[in-house]
């Protein structure tokens, strides 16, 4: 879906009218990974946690309809841009939970920052592997694969651990009708929290400069000499 973003009059936030608060892809893969581990183990519990205003509950319900057991909504007036502030609040909630694994998306498209998972890991002093596209868990140890520039890194770590999920790990299931109905009855605890001061704040939002309108320079192989000329003289890349 191509969403066109509108910026509010004060220029520091996005107009959310009509936007849908779905689980983003990376987080859907994280929920899927958790469900598969629970299914393989034949026991355990999957908890979905989200911080934000009431719209966060739509996101949690989606995870519940996929199969998560319960949800926790850390209720704030807004989602701050400060990833450290978000991570601090999540870590406070997670620290007593004796989780074997805490899974995050590699990055939320909203912030496009990709920091919350690793910060939570540090605050809880847990081992962490980021942006993984392969995972194996055996008892209390795990092996994860991550794609890096032109190579693949395989990392080993002990549990409990924090992982952030990249594309390629799995394909997320669609919630069944039964799952959607069941999700309505699953427990969703709402906890109002205070985020405290934030050190990273948006001053201004702008739409990116439009690229100059595209130009078709010709058809077929006959256009190649003109392309070479433009790349040499105009774009100066050859």
């Amino acid at each position: 879906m191509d969403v066109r973003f509108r910026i509010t009059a004060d220029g520091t936030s996005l107009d959310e009218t009509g936007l849908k608060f779905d689980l983003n892809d990376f987080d859907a893969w994280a929920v899927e990974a958790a469900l598969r581990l629970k299914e393989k183990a034949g026991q355990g519990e999957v908890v979905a946690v989200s911080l934000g205003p009431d719209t966060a509950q739509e996101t949690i319900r989606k995870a519940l309809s996929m199969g998560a057991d319960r949800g926790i909504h850390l209720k704030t007036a807004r989602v701050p841009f400060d990833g450290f502030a978000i991570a601090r609040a999540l870590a406070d909630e997670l620290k007593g939970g004796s989780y074997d694994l805490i899974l995050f998306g590699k990055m939320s498209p909203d912030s496009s920052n990709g920091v919350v998972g690793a910060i939570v890991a540090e605050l809880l002093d847990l081992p962490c592997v980021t942006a993984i596209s392969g995972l194996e868990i055996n008892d209390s140890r795990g092996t994860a694969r991550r794609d890096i520039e032109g190579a693949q890194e395989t990392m080993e770590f002990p549990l409990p651990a924090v992982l952030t999920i990249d594309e390629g790990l799995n394909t997320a299931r669609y919630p069944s009708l039964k799952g959607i109905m069941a999700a309505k009855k699953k427990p969703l605890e709402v906890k109002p929290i205070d985020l405290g001061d934030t050190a990273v704040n948006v001053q201004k939002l702008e739409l990116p400069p439009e690229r100059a309108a595209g130009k078709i320079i010709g058809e077929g192989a006959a256009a190649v000499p003109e392309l070479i000329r433009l790349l040499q003289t105009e774009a100066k890349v050859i």
Partner: protein
Amino acid sequence: MANVFAYAEARAGALRKVALETVTAARKLADQTGGEVHALLVGAPGISTSAEQLGKHGADVVLVCEHDAFAQYNPEASAALAAERIKSGGFRAALFATSAQGRDLAPRVAAKCGVGIVTDVTAVDLAADTVIVKHPINIGKVIATVAITSTPAIVALRPNIFTPEPSAKAGRVENIQPMGDPSASRVVVKELKTGGGGKLDLAEAPVIVAGGRGLKAAENFKLVEELADAFGNAAVGATRAVTDDGWRPHSDQIGQTGRLVSPELYIAVGISGAVQHLAGMRTSKTIVAINKDKEAPIFKVADYGIVGDVFEVVPALTAAVREARKGH
């Protein structure tokens, strides 16, 4: 007189190009604060030979930590060392690259220092002693100007935006010790598999030739590879349609859920130009598109479009690029 910290990224014994970008950006910031650039370089014994390069690009001091346990990326020990240095004080900002390593390391360091962080930054500046950065959000559809008021501010720079520039400084080498025992890290790299020797990476290549489903089959990607070879400095990318079909590895995927790239020249071969693909490459300086459908959305962003069959146009282009680059 605040200083600026720069993490000089290395892998497998060699400096990465992003290390020079990071030091160059740190130099510009330090020229505004009137302070020094302190670069941190960690690696296996021998990595200190790369320190000179950092001095040439603007580092006043190069902190070098050599240890066998740094032969591979060692996230916990690297974070502990960087955080310790940064906390020792005097830094207005600490710069990293938004590479696989920098993305992993920078938030760990921010957490250890308890300070603010922004990644994938395309511009960094100082205004009345506050670090101000530009950062694309919502997969590039909106550009945020963000103020980081913590000291220091942790900033991870988008690769290929801050061009390395020579600026000779002392580059005084200080050998430093790791924090604790770096061999005792809980998270350890067991294997590093490099794909196809010596090929340029997407993040570092000035030219990217990317192929889409228009190529029809995995084996036809050799057309794309030959065009990349003709440039001599090009990497090969792909769309999700292609990586989903297994024609190329996922690490080649460009777009919303793949890599974000901004090369000098991006050549889209048989790519329709879906929004999710454009999200990863629309900041490229020059875009060329070859597609047989003149209505394909890729032509809306292409500086130079050729309507035609890839099987006819690409070999002709490869030959012409070879000809134009003769003698290089």
